[in-house]
């Protein structure tokens, strides 16, 4: 109470953010209107805890990249405040930049440079002396499994390697906040899984991560907290577990051992026959599988295999954004 009062009197010294809980990111009333009059962000508020692995989701054009662009000083804001580890973006821009590592959606390094030079140049921009930069570049490139390609001109790398170069580049100055804007877009599932592992390792070492992605399985697997943005407004901001707990019915596909002519009826479960050997079942969260399988067995129906109809978060996401 006293601290809240002090924060109102002298926000720079007694800010709740700075003294009690150091937020990795604190956004207040962030608004962006482009030159053509289009408003991409309508006064959003967002907070990310230090050490968090945070998902920022939203459909295309929702305002994710605009928000990230503003945080990373790539886009000028129209109104509002952005604080990164207590530093105000408008007044302490260089301190904010020191804290952030950015991995953009599209490849944005010089494709005529070697992998090592890309990372070394970035270290130089952050004022890291060449000898130290060499040591850090080696560490980052080894971490991203790119050390063997360090002398390769970057345009010759595969898509997955190029994305890892951008992560290595973003990590070379040891940022406290790493922002990943769709880092696994367009890479195959094997590379995606290995990048998930890399991201987990980076987060476990204490780096706060904000991730935007269209792969909702990725967000569900990696992130502890989530915000969903749609049409420039935050429509959901909660713990991932709390959000997933809102799911009332989980849908599964059952492959049957034998053909059936009509769908079985089991009280309390929604069952739809997709074809003669496949059922779609809706299982309410408060009920389990046991009662369903007992009843199916009693009716002489054997289930050979079962899979999720869709990713759980995906269903919720589509409900929230009206998809």
């Amino acid at each position, binding site marked *: 109470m006293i601290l809240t009062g002090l924060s109102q009197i002298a926000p720079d010294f007694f800010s709740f953010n700075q003294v009690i809980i150091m937020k990795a990111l604190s956004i207040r009333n962030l608004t962006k209107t482009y030159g053509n009059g289009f408003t991409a962000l309508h006064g959003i508020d967002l907070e990310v805890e230090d050490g968090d692995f945070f998902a920022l989701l939203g459909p295309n054009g929702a305002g994710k990249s605009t928000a990230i662009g503003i945080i990373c000083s*790539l886009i000028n804001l129209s109104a509002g405040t952005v604080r990164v580890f207590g530093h105000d973006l408008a007044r302490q821009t260089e301190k904010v930049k020191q804290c952030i590592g950015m991995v953009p959606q599209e490849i944005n390094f010089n494709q005529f440079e070697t992998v090592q030079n890309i990372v070394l140049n970035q270290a130089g921009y952050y004022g*890291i002396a060449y000898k130290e930069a060499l040591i850090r570049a080696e560490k980052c490139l080894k971490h991203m499994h790119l050390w063997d390609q360090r002398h390769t001109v970057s345009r010759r790398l595969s898509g997955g390697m190029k994305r890892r170069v951008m992560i290595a580049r973003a990590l070379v100055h040891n940022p406290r906040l790493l922002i990943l804007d769709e880092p696994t877009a367009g890479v195959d599932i094997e590379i995606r899984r290995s990048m998930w592992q890399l991201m987990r390792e980076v987060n476990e070492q204490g780096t706060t991560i904000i991730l935007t992605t269209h792969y909702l399985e990725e967000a569900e697997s990696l992130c502890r907290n989530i915000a969903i943005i749609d049409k420039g407004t935050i429509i959901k901001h909660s713990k991932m577990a709390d959000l997933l707990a809102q799911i009332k019915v989980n849908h599964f596909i059952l492959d049957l051992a034998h053909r059936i002519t009509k769908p079985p009826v089991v009280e309390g479960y929604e069952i739809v026959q997709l074809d003669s050997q496949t059922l779609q079942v809706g299982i309410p969260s408060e009920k389990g599988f046991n009662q369903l399988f007992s009843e199916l067995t009693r009716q002489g129906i054997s289930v050979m295999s079962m899979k999720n109809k869709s990713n759980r978060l995906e269903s919720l996401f589509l409900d929230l954004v009206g998809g």
Partner: protein
Amino acid sequence: MRYRIALLTIVTKEVRRFMRIWPQTMLPPAITTALYFLIFGTLMGQRIGNISGASYMDYIVPGIILMSVISHSYANVVSSFYSTKFQRHIEELLVSPVPNWVILAGYVSGGVCRGLLVGTVVIGISLLFTTIPVIHLGLSCLVFLLTAILFALAGFINAVFADSFDDISIIPNFILTPLTYLGGVFYSVDMLPELWQKISLVNPILYIVNSFRYGLIGVTDIDITVALTMIISFIGALIVFSLYLLNKGVGIKQ
């Protein structure tokens, strides 16, 4: 210290860029200027005779050296900074804690390095055709450097406004080249009608060429103090304008 490292990083990157493509950056000016000296200096110069007491070859040497400095310092910055925007690796600098003055100083220094290097190559070529007395060494070096700075700045501004590759060739072709040829490289402004003499006074290249010519062979159409004041004023104005553009994020931020 941090800014010095960032500046050195940009300059090293820029120098490495034009040295990597040295057949495109170093050879053409050597060949072009050798042809200028051969055709204008040796073949036509003998028929033109002396201007202001100097042989035509000696008269055009300072201007031709500066032509190469002008075009290459300009071309280096305009092509490099525009490519940086086009390929979006400008974002590497924008997300980093590099102040705008360091970005400007880094790119301009890269252009200056290329301009001076090409200028030195052209001086070497000119020595094959004539001897350069160098009357005022300090003044010559100063003008040589200021010319590279001025046109590297101009190239930077062109790149900031450019939205396409056409935009980075229009200014050099339709503005810079005419200004260079009308800046008294091949003739004395005293030879022009009075109206054109007055119009020529707004051309910065006139001041540069005359100062450099005075430094090398002791001949000028313009008062040297006025000329140096004009050159430094042009540089000051372009620095202020460039920093204004960077601070506003014109052409690089939305």
